[in-house]
């Protein structure tokens, strides 16, 4: 969706009366998540939700959102438009303070994901240069009100999700490999030649450190989402665009210097997941991962070091997953409004029913009193 910058800034961002959180109140909160939602009146928004205290903040979005990035220093959140939208809305974790709207440069659009630098000063976003189809990583200056500060090459088509390794300098990019163009909506334009990859890029100079492509027989297994586990092991999830008679593994692991490893089917086959992984999240301990599939109506749990699936739980329309406040805990959200705090054993510790249809992704938000 193309959004005019002036209209965006003029009309879209509004605070919604709700729980007036204070820094002190939030410091005591245990589990806070941020995500894009569709509201009961059909409009779109982004919310910050505390599993103990309920809604912390809500902002309106001019269209459907996708993921939320969280500033590790300030706790500020940025909600992104879903592909091929071009807007992003930044908002602080507490009531007060106007949200800031910004849009991609002319001729580009967001893919819906972003990550902040470790010092919170820069925001990196996955983007598409529409006419050339090249993937790029947009760089935005936070202190300048999310002013465009530059761009890095993504080294692939369709960069979707991204993250930083523990050194804060190495960025890992999930290049889905699928070319699209706003004129033809979300239709894939290059299925015959798509080449998904994981690209590792030095954010200081934009140089490619290493890149890994799946074997040719898996060239239609689009690498879409990822998270970083202990030891900088990447956990990635795929969406298979090949023949319906084939069911390759959809969950992969990778460490720099090695080849990608696809985790064999465990308690749920890739057919059970309908060839589709929605989201990936690593827990606070860095040892376990949750992988959701909205089409498979389930969340799988993986032991990263053991390189295996250890559990599964069915969830209606589950998609958003984020680390919970403790190790081995995850928050799972669904399109029916469910918000669940679950363990990697699949037990549900807490469940909330909200009025929103939670969108595809969810972010864990760590707040402290100084996040004012």
């Amino acid at each position, binding site marked *: 969706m*193309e959004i005019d910058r002036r209209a965006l800034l003029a009309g879209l961002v509004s605070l919604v009366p709700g729980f007036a959180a204070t820094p002190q109140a939030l410091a005591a909160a245990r589990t806070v998540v941020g995500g894009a939602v*569709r509201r009961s009146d059909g409009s779109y928004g982004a919310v910050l939700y505390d599993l103990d205290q309920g809604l912390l903040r809500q902002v309106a979005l001019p269209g459907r959102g*996708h993921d939320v990035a969280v500033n590790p220093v300030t706790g500020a959140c940025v909600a992104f438009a*879903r*592909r091929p939208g071009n807007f992003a809305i930044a908002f602080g974790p507490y009531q007060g303070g106007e949200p800031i709207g910004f849009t991609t440069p002319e001729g580009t659009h967001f893919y*819906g994901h972003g990550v902040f630098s470790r010092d919170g000063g820069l925001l990196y976003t996955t983007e598409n240069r529409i006419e050339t189809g090249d993937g790029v990583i947009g760089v935005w200056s936070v202190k300048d009100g999310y002013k465009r500060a530059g761009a890095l090459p993504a080294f692939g088509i369709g960069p*979707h999700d991204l993250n930083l390794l523990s050194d804060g300098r190495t960025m890992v990019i999930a290049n889905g490999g699928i070319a699209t*163009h706003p*004129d*033809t*909506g*979300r*239709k894939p*334009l290059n*299925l*015959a*030649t798509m080449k998904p990859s994981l690209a590792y890029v030095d954010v200081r100079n934009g140089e490619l450190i290493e890149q890994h492509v799946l074997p040719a027989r898996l060239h239609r297994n689009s690498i*879409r989402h990822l998270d970083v586990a202990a030891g900088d092991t990447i956990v990635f999830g795929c969406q298979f665009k*090949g*023949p*319906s*008679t084939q*069911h390759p593994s959809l969950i992969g692991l990778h460490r720099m210097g090695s080849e990608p490893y696809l985790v064999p089917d465990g308690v749920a086959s890739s*057919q*059970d997941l309908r060839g*589709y992984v*929605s989201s990936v999240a690593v827990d606070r301990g860095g040892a376990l991962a949750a992988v959701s599939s*909205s*089409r498979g*109506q389930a969340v799988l749990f993986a032991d990263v070091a053991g390189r295996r699936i250890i559990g599964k739980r069915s969830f*209606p*329309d*589950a*998609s958003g997953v984020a680390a919970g406040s403790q190790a081995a805990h995850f928050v799972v959200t*669904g*399109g*029916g409004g469910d918000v669940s705090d679950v363990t990697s054993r699949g037990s549900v510790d807490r469940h909330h029913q909200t009025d929103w*249809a*939670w*969108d*595809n992704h969810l972010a864990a938000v760590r707040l402290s009193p100084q996040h004012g």
Partner: protein
Amino acid sequence: MSWAAPSSRQAAIVIGLGLCVLFAATAAQSTNVQAKVPFDHAQLARTSLEQFIRFGYARFGEAVGRMSDRVAELCSAPSENTLKAARESFRKTVAAWGGVEFITFGPVGENNRLERIMFWPDRRGIGARQVRRLIYAKKKRALDPARLAKMSVAMQGLGALEIALYSKGAGELAQPGAATFRCGYALAVSRNLGAIAKAILTSWASSGAFAKLWLTAGPGNTVYLSGRETTLELSKLLNQGLDTVVEQRLEPLAGIGARKVRRPVILARSGLTLNLVAADVAALKRLMFDGGIVTAVAARAGNDEEALSLMRSVRAETDLAVRLLKPLAQGADLLGKPGSDRKLVPTIFALKNIRENAVGLLKSSAGLSLGFNASDGD
């Protein structure tokens, strides 16, 4: 281009039907409609296979076969007449392709067959560039259908053949000895298409691999874990087919709203764009009314008058769209002519109504509604 109002008679028809549909939809919402019998997914799978899928691919295979014969005749006896006959056979093949082009599941999804039959959209003109270079360089391996099958998908299908038969220099095909390579390449493309069509039809035949999967949905099936999933495939086919026709093909031609941007138009070189659209719509009509969708929905609805009324409206609008498109497809050179956009608007309205109501009716009747994320993730 602007899109002024359609003729008053056409507008009256569309508005009248729209009101009828709106009334029926409102009535359906206000009444608690209870199903009389369970939705018969298995019967729908069987009927759609026999009356729509196999029918369509058989017709496509036959058209490709005849086209290969005409192109072979053109190559062996170049003349204006044989060139005209080859182009006419291409037109009929395009129409036959419209009968199945929105089927994306099954054997057409294997070995890049869908892209090899028609590489589109091709925003950057990759196909045209590759084919022109090929014809200029006279690469002999492109004359062998088996070797051509391993080359770029953009050089293998109907788009490539259109360039060979209609682009600059194609007139030389009628002159003996003037375009031997071009003609040989066109023949290889035709025969390669024949091989692809045959492979697809074999898999859908009664003893074919995919037909068995299609007809035995349930636990243990390697593609369809329940009967609902084959119905879901048909629902997506109908929805995406109508979506493509309206948003990717007709609205850009009519210059409507955001779709006004200039971009390549499918089969514009041969002037067959609206032939394909007309075939698309006829195929979707066949899927609904012969392929078992309407029968399955009607059986589920029982004597529920609101649902039946909605179905009658879908029928009327489908007939209208087919009727409106027929003369437009015959006047092949409509594109770019003054007033052509106006002629498309009534069809667009009708198709939008069909999409809204037919797909909605099928989904609600068959219990296909998916969650917010499952229906549209990323």
